[in-house]
């Protein structure tokens, strides 16, 4: 469950005039996908604030990026690779000692289907 802090005072709010307003039911769907529960009386507020954030995104999208290569990572480096070798040992006992529920070497979780 998330609870919202009161908004921080801002010198200049992002313009929201041109933003397509996000619907409350879309917020509910995204919250479900992200497994975040929002108290019913706060959904209106969350919707309003996310609409503001989308205003900021709109501003970013107004920038001309024609000649800009997409950045996959802020570090100017390339991936180092490791050799295909087994370097990990079986540490099941240690890992399962801190798991809430195990049986026959399996981790137990609430039932996921039917």
């Amino acid at each position: 469950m998330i609870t919202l802090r009161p908004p921080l005072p801002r010198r200049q709010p992002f313009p929201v005039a041109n933003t397509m307003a996000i619907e409350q039911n879309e917020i509910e769907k995204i919250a479900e996908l992200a497994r975040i529960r929002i108290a019913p009386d706060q959904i209106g507020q969350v919707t309003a604030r996310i609409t503001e954030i989308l205003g900021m995104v709109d501003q970013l999208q107004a920038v001309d990026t024609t000649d800009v290569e997409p950045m996959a990572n802020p570090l100017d480096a390339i991936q180092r690779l490791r050799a295909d070798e087994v370097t990990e040992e079986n540490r099941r006992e240690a890992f399962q000692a801190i798991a809430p529920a195990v049986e026959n070497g399996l981790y137990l979780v609430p039932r996921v289907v039917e």
Partner: protein
Amino acid sequence: MQWETVIGLEVHLQLATCSKIFSGSATTFGAEPNTQASAVDLAMPGMLPVLNAKAVRYAVMFGLGIGAEIGRRSVFDRKNYFYPDLPKGYQISQFEAPIVGRGTFEIQLEDGSTRSIGITRAHLEEDAGKSLHEDFHGQTGIDLNRAGTPLLEIVSEPDLRNAAEAVAYLKALHSLVTYLEISDGNMAEGSMRCDINISLRPKGSDALGTRAEIKNVNSFRFVEKAIRHEIERQADILEDGGRVVQETRLYDADLDETRPMRSKEVANDYRYFPEPDLLPVVIDDEYIEAIAAGLPELPAQKRHRFVEQYGLGNYDANVLADSRALANYFETVVTRCGDAKIAANWVQVELLGQLNRSETGIEDCPVSAVALGGLIQRILDNSISGKIAKQVFEAMWQGEGSADQVIEARGLKQVSDSGALEAMVDQVIAGSASQVEQYLAADEERRKKLVGFFVGQVMKLSRGQANPQMVNELLAKKLV
């Protein structure tokens, strides 16, 4: 209304690395649950992925094998969804910049004709763990041994038109990846799993109909059955004026039907974004050229060579080039006996027949290629007939030694001694007075048919060992 079926396949191929794609855990199939699941695979806080060089290499080998453009700068992304067999809450996959771009490869159909099928892309990703839903007091058991096993997801263009083509595609793909030795291709162990996208459209139309996706079909036979069933289901809906719903379905092999998955399982909003824990993978020309130089002859190349070099038909070439082991076996037999057509026939009929009956792989074949070549030599030099050769082959299979040893030990050598044959021919003629009379009274045409009786009798007398050509010559001389 005549319908045309449009099929595209997504194949998840487990790569034959010994460690996982992002951790140093072992990937051995069938280990005790969670004994191959490290802190990285369990998504413990602070763990970071480190990419396996061999997984990258294998993906590039596949790309070169289908003549695809290799992504010079490929990027990993997070595919977000929640399921307990995916402890991070996201799968590391590739979205915008896959390692293998567009390619094509050739499939061969049952009738020997070939078709070129487009591959849209292939990308690297990690496998998920396994969920076990039975016997845990209403809870689900999770085994994360498989989590992090490297997968290459191979996406085809919607170029396939029926179940047989889809199966031919999968078989060709299986053949390619086992030639390249980038996967063991073991479908029973889940090394090659298939999602089927399928839709119907009125024949002649270019627009695509609404598709259904059938998840996780794990054998050639089930792919064929699932497609047949789904075509029928969609055709029924369309004939009745209904509309196919875009959805994900499961194939139930026991009931031979597909049924929709629950909507909760298919919340398709993966919110991809670049994986911040991995940097872009950069591949240069030198790396690609080195891999290209080391590629083996691939199935399609071998098939074409078999047709040209040995004069085989397309169908035979396809069967014999199916696996590297079988192709090597066949070529060794040819080298030894010198006759490709007879070698092709023996390998396909006797050898593959016996291997199938005894459920033995070519690798464990008790008769070596050199030994089979030796047997065929004895047919070619008239030491034994083709019929006797089958007996000799049986004995060789049972471990009775080489062809020459079996022929010697069992006294099967063809009788080409004219004295011995003449005695047998005389004996048969003496014992068949009425047939001789009939023969002598007959005209030239009819004699040709009647002579078969005498040949048969001599063969019987010699227990199949008489040289048939010499018997014919002797009979022609005697029956006057």
